[in-house]
């Protein structure tokens, strides 16, 4: 309500200024014809001044209902919007909110993944439904995280979890990893060249077609579990890949 009165106060102030200047102008102008012209111009200026804040107020008030109309799909006549164009600010705002949500989620995912011992750096991408006509608009579909494991023997060279700089996103080249049932032979765990086996047949992973070590496998599982716990989303929605 205060905003409304402030707008009116501003409008009144502007109108009084214009009227005062118009009165002065009328005194200064030499001919009657020029005065008549000045009156028309001042009149137009007054109209624009009055309409400006009214337009602003209408926008401000339509903004909130516009969201609910969009959410509930309320339309005066089938297929006809109650107020064409009224939803534009709402759409803009939804997109902005979505972008903030995505950014926040990705930052948290990177921080969580980097906090897992053995992960040197991470990059996260949130796959979200951006179809504004869809009922699942804004829903998280999948979270893709690419991690770079700490090299063996490297203990103090990378960014330690929890240390300053940990959790910062580092540009990594995403690597396509085939996720699917893998037939594997039991192999000695100490031999990193031998493909790892979980026994479930659902989580065999590798980098660029190469096999990965059981240690790496455990790291991937740990990252996935940490992300699921930390973000409160099911593990099935999280895809963890190992980058170079």
């Amino acid at each position, binding site marked *: *309500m*205060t905003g409304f*009165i402030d707008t*009116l*106060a501003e409008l*009144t102030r502007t*109108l*009084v200024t*214009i*009227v*005062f200047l*118009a*009165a002065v*102008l*009328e*005194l200064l102008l030499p001919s009657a014809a020029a*005065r008549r012209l*000045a*009156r028309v111009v*001042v*009149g137009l200026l*007054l109209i624009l001044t*009055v309409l400006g804040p009214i337009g602003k107020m209408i926008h401000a008030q339509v903004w909130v209902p516009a969201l609910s109309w969009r959410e509930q799909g309320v339309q005066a006549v089938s297929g006809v919007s109650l107020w064409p164009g009224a939803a534009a600010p709402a759409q803009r705002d939804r997109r902005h909110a979505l972008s903030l949500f995505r950014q926040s989620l990705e930052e948290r995912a990177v921080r969580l993944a980097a906090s897992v011992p053995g992960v040197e750096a991470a990059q996260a991408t949130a796959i979200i439904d951006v179809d504004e006509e869809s009922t699942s608009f804004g829903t998280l579909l999948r979270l893709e995280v690419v991690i770079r494991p700490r090299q063996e023997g490297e203990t103090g060279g990378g960014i330690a979890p929890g240390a300053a700089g940990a959790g910062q996103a580092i540009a990594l080249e995403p690597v396509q990893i085939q996720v699917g049932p893998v037939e594997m032979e039991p192999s000695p765990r100490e031999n990193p060249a031998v493909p790892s086996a979980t026994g479930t047949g659902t989580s065999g992973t590798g980098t660029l077609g190469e096999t990965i070590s059981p240690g790496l496998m455990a790291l991937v599982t740990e990252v996935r579990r940490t992300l699921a716990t930390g973000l409160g989303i099911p593990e099935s929605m999280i895809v963890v890949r190992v980058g170079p």
Partner: protein
Amino acid sequence: MAAVLVVLGGVGWAASTSTAPPGTPDAVAGVEEDIVQDELSGEQAQEIARYLERINQDLGGRLPPTTIRDWWEVFRGRKQFDWGALGQALLSYFLGAMLVNLRLLGQLVVLAVIAAVLANLQAAYEGETVARTAWTVAYLLILVLGLAGFHSAVSLARGAITDLVGYMLSLLPVLAGLCVAAGAVTTAGILSPAMIVAVHAISVLVADVVLPLVVFSVVLDVASNLGEAARVTQLAELFRSVATSTLGILLAVFLGITAVSGAAGAVVDGVAVRTAKFLSSSFIPVVGKMFSDAVEVVVGTSLLVKSVVGVTGLLVLVLTVALPLLKLAALVLVYRLAAALVQPLGAGMVADTLASMGHGLTLITLATAAVALMFFLAASIMLGAGWISMAFR
């Protein structure tokens, strides 16, 4: 059940403080005196007395009973209150305010005369523009003077509303406490919060929406009279309409809320006190009947005290708002008088401007009076609530 316990507790307390033999007129008078003493010496009752004292000072000490105790004596017929003296005090206060504003009236009229002479010169001589410029300067001076007075009037109205709210916040707890003492526990529980919310909401809306709208309308009206080049009188009229409509809606909503809340608890309270009487007379052996009669005495006396405090409170409320309203009325009269005096001189625009300011001031006065009326009715409803529950038993 809580109400029954409260009533029984109150009776027990009253009976324990009375020293005369029970059932005698002296005992009843003793109980009555104890209740009156207790209710009238509370901090919030003293707050009302402080307002009364302040009004008395403003009126030059012409308001003889300055304590609630004095008013109690007036209501009991032991003292006389001089209503004529009060009327005279208010009249002299109004005339004093008029005298203060006469200087403003004189300045406005003199400037308007100058403006009128300049307007006539403008018509008589060739140098039209020079005369018109001089007229505009004179008109601007009138505007400055008029708007300064208008600004002080708006401040006065705001101050009056703030005072009213402060006073209502002192009066409501006293009335709520007395409602409880009279057995109207539920009524007090319902009415008191509703009143406090309504009082705040109304005061904020009137002070922050209605008054600014009236000010805007006056400013636009006045600015429109500056010249023929640009006029925004219709917008000013729109603001004025919105202000008056808002005031009307507020009045209706406020009265609706208070009236409904007031009636809601009365039945419950009536039944509660009746139950308390029944319980005391039926289940307390030997002295049960006496105890039941004591309930009547306590509740009746509390209602009497409530009436005295309530009526005194209403009178203070009226006087609290009457003084600023009298000042505002004096200002309205000054502006209207100035407009009436200036019009025959031929300065139509100046007369219109002054009349417009007078109209705006009238609206501000009415808005303040409307707030006072709402508060008055709210306090009256709270005052009458105890009687409604009494009627139910």
